[in-house]
């Protein structure tokens, strides 16, 4: 009953989702369904609309048209309920340079109304390996450490849905290897994950469904068990151009 197997509802349902800025299309027609506990990777070259898609799903951008449901709710109507279920890690850390590490987390803890904030902050910092820097200002952290802290920030309220926009930004090899551990080890059950990245290797190893976003449209969708990483890489190169 409990867990991904018995689940009927969808965490994310997007149909014909579009977003344009003036006369520029960032998203044309995105159809995407993500079940609870599922892990979906979105690959795409620069400017393909990955960040816009994450921002629209994270409710910080309004879609121009199309339908979006998060956990069966319309973000336009139940914005706060939706936001509470979502954690976002992106190339923007959403941290305040002049606040200390623990102050940043305490701030977000208060914004989300997290209980037992102290204990959760300690746990989170331990998970991302920053417990010894808790009193330092974010300004003094390296980019990779800031990214780790950003992961602790996004998971502080244990959201069942994680939206990751190039979460490996700034992380070194060790950090990339620990990325999954840092993100999900605090959970009792697997969270739903949608992740964008240009890092094919990382995305393919972490996610069970691979999609390609080009020019604001999902042009290809492959389940891990039906494809080999070699053939998917070849496919992706065809869409994204030989350079990648």
């Amino acid at each position, binding site marked *: *009953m409990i867990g991904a197997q018995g689940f*009927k509802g969808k965490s994310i349902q997007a149909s014909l989702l579009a977003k344009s800025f003036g006369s520029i299309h960032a998203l044309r027609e995105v159809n995407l369904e993500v079940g*609870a506990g599922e892990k979906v990777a979105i690959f795409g070259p620069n400017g393909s609309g990955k960040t816009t898609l994450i921002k629209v799903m994270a409710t910080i951008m309004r879609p121009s048209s199309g339908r979006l449901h998060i956990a069966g709710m319309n973000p336009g109507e139940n914005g706060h*309920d939706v936001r509470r279920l979502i954690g*976002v890690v992106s190339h923007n850390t959403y941290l305040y*340079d002049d606040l200390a590490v623990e102050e940043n987390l305490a701030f977000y803890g208060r914004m989300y109304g997290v*209980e037992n904030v102290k204990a959760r902050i300690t746990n989170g910092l331990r998970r991302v390996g920053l417990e010894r820097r808790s009193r330092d200002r974010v300004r003094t952290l390296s980019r990779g450490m800031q990214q780790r802290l950003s992961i602790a920030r996004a998971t502080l309220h244990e959201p069942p849905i994680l939206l990751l926009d190039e979460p490996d930004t700034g992380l070194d090899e060790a950090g990339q290897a620990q990325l999954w551990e840092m993100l999900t080890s605090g959970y009792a059950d697997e969270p739903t994950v949608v992740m964008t990245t240009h890092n094919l290797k990382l995305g393919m190893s972490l996610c069970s469904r691979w999609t390609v976003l080009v020019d604001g449209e999902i042009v290809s969708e492959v389940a891990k068990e039906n494809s080999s990483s070699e053939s998917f890489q070849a496919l992706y190169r065809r869409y994204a151009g030989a350079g990648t």
Partner: protein
Amino acid sequence: MRAFRRSIDVTPGLGRSFVAMGDGLTAAISISRAAVGPPSFFRQVGAILWKDLAVELRTKDILSSMLVFGLIVLVIFNFAFELRGENLILVAPGVLWVAFVFAGILGLGRSMAQEKERSSMEGLLLCPVDRGAIFVAKMLGNLIFIVILEAITLPIFAAFFNLPVLTPGVGLIVVLGTLGFASVGTLFAAIAINTRAREVMLPILLFPIIVPVIIASVKATAFVLDGKPWAEIWPWVNLLIAFDVIFLAVCFVTFEYVIGE
């Protein structure tokens, strides 16, 4: 008003959402035990305000630039208007308010730019927080910064021009005038930051709208300095109060349309 209603409504909404999601979400419920109980409107306002004040306390970014600029304005006007003798009492209130408004606009722009620079506004928008709460917090932060600027500038002004401005009457007018200025200014700073030519847009948008605040504040300050009876001053103070009430409400309601894409 909607904001308050919403923050109360949230709990049943959350319950509904879990039902809507079906069995699998039992997982989410157990997970979200950490995040039960929506934070109240005022707790979130407090959190954002605390964050802004803490950052400013460490960087002194906004206050120092406002203060230096305000002083420069005072000195420049001294040369421009020969602020001595008979001239003084007529021109001084205007000089004082122009210094406040110019320096204040600098602070308004700066505080919104800080949110923009590292996309922290997006971080705020991710949170389950009423857009009205963000407005109230940013507005209070701006109000506090500008009032601190004024509290430092007033004694200097009094010393420079030997005028008795350190009275409760002037204090009241300053706070009321600044409240109206800060509320419209917070709204427009959020607009200007996302436009072309953003530094120019804020004064262009703000100055015409706050004409009543400037007229009323200058007049009321002049009357107080002139020793006029309060019966003559009240109409101006009432005008300030009316402006404050109307625009706090209008800006609170419209703020949600100016943030986010």
